[in-house]
């Protein structure tokens, strides 16, 4: 290799490194360039430059990707120090909604993989993916509307409770059970869409209208009847009663216990629907990969709750409510002929999960972050405004 060529390669490598390095590290690119120029032996200078390129390029590329990711989720959640992976993990865990979005998307994709392996009609896959888009669209639209204030929340809660009661009275029936409404040729389960958000919202702010809404929802579950959703109410409110006992929670808990008892008395003989019910068991019979996809998807649903519990001590009740809701739905799906949320066929749970993210804090608080592993200065985090949950 000629001397000129080696020096040109050095120059090229240095330029590539300088072009890739983020602004705060640009000086280091110059440092390597100047250092290489000071090495009299061209071969050694080339080796020195290529070594530096190999050592710094991954960091430079990661930093660029991080910048793009930060622009999507908010650049203030990144710290200048710390490893790239830790930065991404920290960013995700400091944004519960963003984490929920990632978990939901992953769970839906895993569910789609299961259905594809199981040979489900392509329409089913399309419905689930369509529901994901609808869920995120609603999340985006309602997040803005949600800033309108507490009045919106109370009104939305009451409206949701009314919708659940209306479903019990006027919804589509099967074997005496009225849980669904038909829209655009698709059967939707309003309780699976609305109740998770109502419960997580209730864990955050409780007042008389919110309590009345939950009690009305409990009555609706008893009337429909829906044992799975009544169990969800009971489990979530029991967890809340343990963590934040007050008169609102106690009243709602009593109503949910009565509702669940009522659903136990009434028979529920609906058969399992393929790709919807009992898939936790049947997926493993099909193929281990299908089983793992379903199991993994279901586990993802509670990840925001687990991480929120660990990182935001003062908001634990909210994360417990969120986790209890989706754990209860999963448990019901495992024990009876009830829809397997998100990973099974059905858009209601997907939309419901997306909407329930609205009730999570937008950011983990700075106080909670103080307990996080130390890897640098922590920026002051913006706080979440008053709860403003708007229901569909």
């Amino acid at each position, binding site marked *: 290799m000629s001397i000129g060529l080696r020096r040109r390669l050095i120059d090229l490598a240095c330029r590539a490194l300088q072009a890739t390095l983020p602004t705060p*590290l640009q*000086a*280091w690119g*110059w*440092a*390597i*360039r*100047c*250092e290489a*120029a*000071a*090495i009299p032996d061209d071969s050694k200078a080339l*080796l*020195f*430059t290529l*070594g*530096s*390129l*190999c*050592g*710094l390029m991954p*960091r430079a590329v990661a930093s660029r990707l991080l910048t793009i990711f930060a622009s999507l989720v908010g650049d203030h959640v990144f710290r*200048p*120090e710390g490893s790239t992976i830790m930065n991404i993990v920290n960013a995700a865990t400091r944004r519960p909604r963003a984490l929920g979005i990632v978990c939901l998307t992953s769970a839906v994709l895993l569910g789609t993989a299961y259905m594809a392996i199981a040979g489900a009609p392509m329409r089913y896959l399309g419905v689930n993916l369509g529901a994901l888009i609808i869920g995120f669209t609603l999340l985006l639209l309602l997040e803005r509307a949600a800033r309108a204030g507490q009045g919106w929340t109370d009104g939305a809660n009451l409206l949701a409770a009314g919708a659940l009661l209306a479903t019990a009275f006027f919804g589509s029936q099967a074997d005496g059970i009225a849980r669904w409404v038909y829209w655009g040729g698709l059967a939707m389960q309003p309780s699976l869409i609305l109740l998770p958000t109502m419960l997580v919202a209730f864990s955050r702010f409780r007042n008389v209208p919110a309590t009345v809404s939950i009690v009305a929802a409990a009555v609706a579950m008893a009337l429909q009847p829906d044992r799975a959703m009544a169990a969800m109410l009971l489990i979530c409110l029991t967890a809340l009663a343990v963590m934040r006992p007050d008169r609102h929670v106690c009243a709602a808990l009593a109503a949910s216990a009565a509702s669940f008892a009522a659903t136990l008395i009434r028979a529920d003989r609906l058969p399992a629907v393929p790709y919807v019910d009992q898939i936790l068991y049947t997926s493993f019979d099909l193929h281990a990969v299908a089983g793992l996809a379903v199991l993994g998807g279901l586990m993802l649903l509670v990840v925001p709750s687990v991480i929120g519990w660990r990182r935001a001590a003062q908001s634990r009740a909210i994360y417990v409510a969120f986790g209890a809701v989706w754990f209860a739905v999963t448990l019901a799906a495992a024990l009876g002929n009830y829809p397997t949320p998100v990973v099974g066929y059905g858009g209601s749970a997907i939309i419901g999960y997306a909407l329930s993210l609205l009730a999570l804090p937008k950011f983990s608080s700075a106080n909670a972050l103080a307990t996080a592993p130390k890897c640098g200065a922590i920026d002051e985090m913006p706080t979440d405004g008053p709860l403003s949950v708007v229901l569909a």
Partner: protein
Amino acid sequence: MVLAVLLDADGQWSHGYELARRADVKSGTLYPLLIRLEAQGHLEAEWQQPVEAGRPPRHAYRLTESGVQLARANPPVHPVTTAVRSRQATI
């Protein structure tokens, strides 16, 4: 080893190539380490004007007070000299 070499410099400025050679590390290992040390305040860096005309300036490094403490608190586990290493290579 890089910390030990910087400590040996006893407050004198060192350059990247010389550091890599004395510490026997690749430049791809050296620079990420220097960047981290500087970000953590253990390393001081400055641009030095060339001694000869027409040569580029050079980036030079030395430990700060906290860097000296860090280096003293973390001595090399097995300080292997070049002579010992070449002997090992022939065994």
